């Protein structure tokens, strides 16, 4: 097998294959009775990216679609009024193999994720769930991933290893067999009082020693060293990851979240986000996400086979 990483320049390049897939993926919407989520789901359906299965309050769903002029012809609706029940039912549908992607509708994230983690019918296959955003920016020569800005708050070394394992698995599915990972810190030096720099240095060694497979990890790197080779060279860093990072591992949820949002709000990016660590891609969009982000997230989920 060719182990060289292909350069995916933009999301369009990543998504170009989706419509050509022989079988359209089934997107299961947990608590679908929500205008925003239905907008995204119907847009994706119109573009033949997915086929929806709507789990939620049928009466409200019908009202919204009528008002919006969305056709419910050929749409499977499972009438579950209670949000918690809808989340459970959506997971069970996936568990039975009847759905391919899970997306959160009008339900709190914690309620949405609880059945995902259920031991009996849940979907978790990895050691933890983690969040990953795939970002395209005009200032960077390829798409890159950022993790974890949503689920793991203050991961310790072992949890960071697991988050990376999820991310590496996913990037490999995208056609990047040996992703280059920048483990971020506030600076590129080992500082005993900055745990992030300690963790980053250790992760870098663990990859060297084969304790984390199928990747190259450099760290600690500050953000500029990770994405700019020039900046790294000015600091005397000689690393094949510097300026070439495929995955940015943030030290904690705040750093990842603020970085993600600054990229969205100040750099105008429309990332595609996904939750990893389950048997199928899970999408957890927030209301504030643009239509484009929601659509990109659905498309990203539809473009990989995790199983």
């Amino acid at each position, binding site marked *: 097998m060719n182990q060289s990483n292909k350069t995916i320049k933009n999301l369009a390049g990543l998504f170009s294959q989706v419509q050509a897939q022989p079988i359209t993926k089934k997107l299961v919407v947990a608590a679908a009775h929500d205008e925003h989520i239905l907008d995204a789901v119907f847009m994706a359906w119109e573009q033949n990216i997915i086929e929806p299965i709507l789990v939620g309050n049928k009466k409200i769903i019908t009202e919204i679609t009528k008002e919006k002029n969305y056709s419910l012809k050929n749409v499977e609706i499972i009438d579950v009024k209670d949000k918690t029940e809808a989340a459970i039912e959506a997971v069970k549908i996936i568990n039975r193999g009847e759905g391919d992607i899970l997306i959160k509708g009008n339900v709190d994230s914690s309620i949405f994720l609880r059945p995902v983690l259920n031991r009996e019918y849940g979907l978790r296959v990895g050691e933890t769930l983690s969040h990953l955003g795939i970002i395209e920016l005009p200032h960077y020569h390829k798409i890159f991933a950022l993790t974890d800005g949503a689920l793991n708050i203050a991961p310790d070394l072992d949890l960071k290893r697991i988050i990376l394992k999820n991310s590496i698995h996913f990037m490999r599915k995208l056609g990047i067999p040996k992703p280059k990972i920048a483990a971020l810190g506030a600076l590129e030096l080992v500082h005993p009082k900055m745990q992030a720099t300690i963790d980053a240095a*250790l992760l*870098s*060694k663990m990859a*060297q020693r084969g304790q984390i497979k199928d990747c190259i990890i450099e760290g600690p790197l500050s953000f500029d060293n990770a994405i700019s080779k020039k900046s790294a060279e000015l600091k005397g860093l000689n690393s094949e990851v510097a300026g070439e990072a495929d995955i940015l591992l943030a030290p904690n949820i705040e750093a990842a979240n603020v970085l993600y949002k600054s990229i969205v709000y100040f750099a105008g990016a429309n990332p595609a986000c996904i939750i990893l660590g389950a048997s199928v891609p899970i999408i957890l969009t927030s209301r504030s996400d643009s239509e484009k982000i929601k659509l990109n997230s659905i498309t990203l989920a539809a473009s990989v086979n995790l199983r």
Partner: protein
Amino acid sequence: MKKISDIEKKRPTQPVRLAVVAIEDDNIFEAIANILPKNIIEIILIGHEKKITAIAKEKNLDFSKVKIINEEDDHQAGIKAVELVNSGEVQIIMNGQETYHGASVIGRAVIDKKKGIRKGKIISHLSLFELKDYHKLIGITDTVMNNMPNLKAKVAITNNAVLLFRILGIPKPKVAALGAVEVVNESMPATMHAALLSKMAQRGQIKNCTIEGPLAFDNAISQKHAIHKGIISDICGDPDIILAPDMETAGILYQSFVFFAQAKVASIAMGASVPIVLTSKIDSPETRVNSLLLAASIYG
């Protein structure tokens, strides 16, 4: 350098002065008698003058060139030695009693906050070995001074060792940071320290050396074993310095080299304003002389 005897080649242009603190030990008298004719070191003995003269006479040693300062209190003798360092009169100090008491007498005077010669730095001990199955001299640190060094202390210990090797003519020594295994294991702090030290050398936070770690002992000294474990590093099989995870490990390694591998050895403590020679009962008279020559070579 390949042999312990090579150390003597790096001799100072002028003889350097050694102060021996609270001397009473027979073994050390012999070491002094052996080193005097080499004309590399001049000796000042600080201790009980009458006892010293009596022992020298009994052993039939020629101490005519040895200066003796009478100080019957051991701790005062330690303080006096440090004063001589501060006034520039001596360039090496050594314990005169090969006991815990002897080491502590000198240690206390050295680390004294006001008059001491530590200047806030960490003092660490390095033993340099000639082993018949290794292609060059190899240093092990820290064999005596720092019991359970943390990361910061290990940085200082490494810096001390690197400085010594640079003085001995190796501009960029290779350091193997040891663990029990070569992988990062969160329940083994030594492996985490070693990984961090390796990164710190890469980042230039520890200068003038390269560091690989964590390495198990076999990976450190055999490139074949390292490659077998998938470790590609030019330090494996060729380290100049072995940084032990703690003092027990370093001490046991030291003794196994001496007892099982019949290693030749020279040791000094670095980090104070002058080299300190701390000899112990297990050292042969030859080792004591080697250690003094190593200390003198710093001025060569």
